[in-house]
């Protein structure tokens, strides 16, 4: 791991501008600070106005805030993307193979690679999903793989998200905004488009219908407009031209799923659900759920409706399973992993646990099932008291935690109050798996707007950037 922070625009001893950033650098040079500030104000205005439209989809007034958008794009070169693309595709293929196996024969346990308890004792394991043969052998149809960069050729996978990853609407919106605000930037470099995401998503969803006798009817199942990601649900449904439904719009009759329409009941073949496993079917899961559809899992088991992403995917993406993913690549694909994991110490291993306790001030400690940047400790930026407090939690439930070295996340030039300054970023590409794998170039770049901060989560003061993948000729 690089000792010095890698800046994606200026690197090396002489701080030379890296090739992919030539266009952005000269744009920054030739644009006066006043013009940049004005552009930024345009963004704010645009997003506030646009945010109102977005907000209208969402919860009560003021309940949702728009995530800050930074006007300086993050740039990925063609060859870098080729490498990432190969690595992402490989990783998601392995994760899908693991999910088929975890809910099937569990060969990987018999081979002694993953302990059976890792799967069966996992809180996210759904026994109802055992033995299901899903179309195309796909469980993780939409995967968000969080990547970080630490050097010219060093990328690491921080975590896999194969339940209901969100954020793709920002990828699409950020590009729209960027093209309006700085069209001159796009004239200089060929930036690969992202707008086809929703079309690819719809094709992916249709390709995993159990029945191929008719045009599959796909719906998007949302918990409703009180959900924080509701605008994304409405946006995606709109863009795909499919119905945005809540549990009350659907019912199961004789093992088939229907939606209520004024014309009468209409068959539903594929449900892109954005609600958690536990709430899907009050008959099979939590009986107090009003969000789901009674009998849905029966219809799934009968092969009458497919649910995307599949049930029980949590066994593949929690932070303790994460440590096994490189082994999965070797076991299922017979390949060596292209993308590396961050070296991870597991709280449930005695040696590792001892190491964690001894090195708390240097480590990042996370809950196995945590998300959103909560319930974690960033050692180097925490006070002694905070570390001591966290240590108590850690000792109480060692198996609930993993620890990783504090990575020097790469930085990108970012427009902040003081002007243009480097800020840490990560990247979440979205990988679509149906009958084939599709990855729209780039993904969601999240940026920690606070100086020196490594936490990019929007709930913790993070922003987003438009992410460019340059064409092969650029």
């Amino acid at each position, binding site marked *: 791991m690089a000792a010095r922070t890698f800046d994606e625009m200026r690197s090396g001893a002489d701080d030379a501008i890296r090739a992919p950033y030539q266009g952005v650098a000269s744009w920054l040079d030739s644009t006066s600070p006043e013009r940049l500030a004005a552009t930024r104000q345009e963004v704010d205005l645009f997003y506030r106005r646009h945010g109102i439209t977005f907000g*209208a989809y969402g919860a009560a*007034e003021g309940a949702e805030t728009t995530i800050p958008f930074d006007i300086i794009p993050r740039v990925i070169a063609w060859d870098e993307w080729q490498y990432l693309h190969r690595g992402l595709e490989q990783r998601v293929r392995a994760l899908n193979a693991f999910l088929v196996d975890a809910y099937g024969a569990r060969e990987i346990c018999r081979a002694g690679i993953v302990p059976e308890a890792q799967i069966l004792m996992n809180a996210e394991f759904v026994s109802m999903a055992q033995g299901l043969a899903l179309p195309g052998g796909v469980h993780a149809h939409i995967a968000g793989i969080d990547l970080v960069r630490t050097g010219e050729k060093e990328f690491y996978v921080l975590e896999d998200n194969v339940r209901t990853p969100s954020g793709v609407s920002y990828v699409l919106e950020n590009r729209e905004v960027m093209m309006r605000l700085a069209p001159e930037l796009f004239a200089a470099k060929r930036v690969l488009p992202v707008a086809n995401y929703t079309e690819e998503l719809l094709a992916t969803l249709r390709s995993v219908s159990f029945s191929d006798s008719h045009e599959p009817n796909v719906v998007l199942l949302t918990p409703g407009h009180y959900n924080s990601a509701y605008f994304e649900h*409405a946006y995606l449904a709109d863009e795909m031209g499919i*119905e945005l*439904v809540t549990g009350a*719009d659907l019912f199961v009759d004789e093992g088939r799923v229907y939606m*209520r*329409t*004024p014309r009468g009941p209409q068959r539903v073949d594929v449900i892109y659900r954005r609600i958690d496993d536990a709430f899907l079917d009050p008959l099979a899961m939590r009986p107090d759920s009003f969000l789901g559809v009674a009998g849905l899992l029966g219809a799934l088991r009968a092969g009458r409706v497919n649910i995307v992403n599949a049930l029980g995917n949590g066994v593949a993406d929690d932070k303790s399973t994460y440590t096994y993913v490189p082994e999965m690549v070797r076991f299922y694909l017979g390949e060596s992993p292209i993308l590396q994991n961050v070296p991870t110490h597991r709280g449930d291993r005695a040696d590792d646990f001892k190491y964690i306790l001894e090195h708390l001030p240097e480590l990042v400690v996370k809950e196995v099932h945590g998300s959103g940047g909560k319930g974690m400790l960033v050692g180097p930026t925490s006070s002694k008291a905070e570390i001591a407090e966290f240590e108590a939690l850690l000792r109480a439930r060692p198996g609930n935690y993993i620890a990783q070295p504090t990575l020097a996340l790469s930085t990108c030039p970012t427009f902040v109050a003081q002007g243009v300054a480097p800020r840490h970023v990560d990247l979440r590409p979205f990988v679509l798996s149906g009958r084939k794998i599709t990855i729209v170039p780039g993904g969601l770049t999240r940026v920690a707007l606070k100086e020196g901060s490594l936490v990019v989560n929007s709930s913790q003061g993070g922003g987003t950037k438009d992410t460019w993948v340059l064409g092969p000729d650029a």
Partner: protein
Amino acid sequence: MLSSTAKNLYWMGRYLQRAKTTARLIEASQRMVLQSAGKEAEGVVAVFGMEDEFRQSRGQAQRQGGRLDDLIEFLAFDETNPSSIVSSIASARRNAREERNNITVDVWESLNGLWLELTARLRRNRATLDRGALVEHVRKQAVMVFGAAQVTLLRDEAYNFFQLGAFLERGDNTARILDVKYHHLLPDGRRQSEQLDYFAWSEVLACIGAVRTYRRIYRSALDPAKVAELLLLRRDVPRSVHHCLWMVDLNMRELADAYGTRGEADRLAGELHARLRYAGIDRVFDTGLARFLGGVRDGIATLNDEISRQFLLD
């Protein structure tokens, strides 16, 4: 389209219309209340069949009738009254918000703007609130929302459901107004009165904003039977019961053509429309105005239920 979408648009139309009717009714009644002995307030709440609720909400102190301010407060700004203007606007907005992607920006913004303005003004000091001005604002802005719907909404099934809700509510409102007001002025249901209360009868017309319309159509002095005819049977008066049920029937037929099926709701809509279309005011009075209106209002209530059943709205 989902049934829940149809349902939201149907109720958005109903609530919006209810708010508009109530606003107009309050405005029309203000002068009457000032000039009458204080009973008129109850006459107005009677239009909504809410005499008991009104008395209860006013508490012990003002048992004996109700003042103008009480009336406006109850019908317009009382959030515990589910039929008040503020409750109706909030409901219409809730329906619209859930269908944000099925309506136009113009419809959403005009309705949301109305709601924001209304709730903001109500949060300020109630003592200095100009209630009359706010009621007028609601009425004008509600017209804007209907206008936005008229000129911007795609003419698809969703639009039909919005229209169904609005016209069913409007037809029912006019029938109620006529029913209550007529018998308030002529309790025995006669066609004529010896001493015509000019102001009272012009207020009845004002309830549906049709004072000048009356002059244009009849070019004669106010006559109770003609007032009844205008509210009930004139197809060219956009708030008459006949016009509303004509529009209901029309929208039902468009839906039937789109879906290729017909049901009990279609039959009932056609039957109700025909009842108004082929009625004459003389025959109506022969039957008894109250009986005729009662039958129409029962028909509207049944049609509401049949629409819910036929299109899976519940």
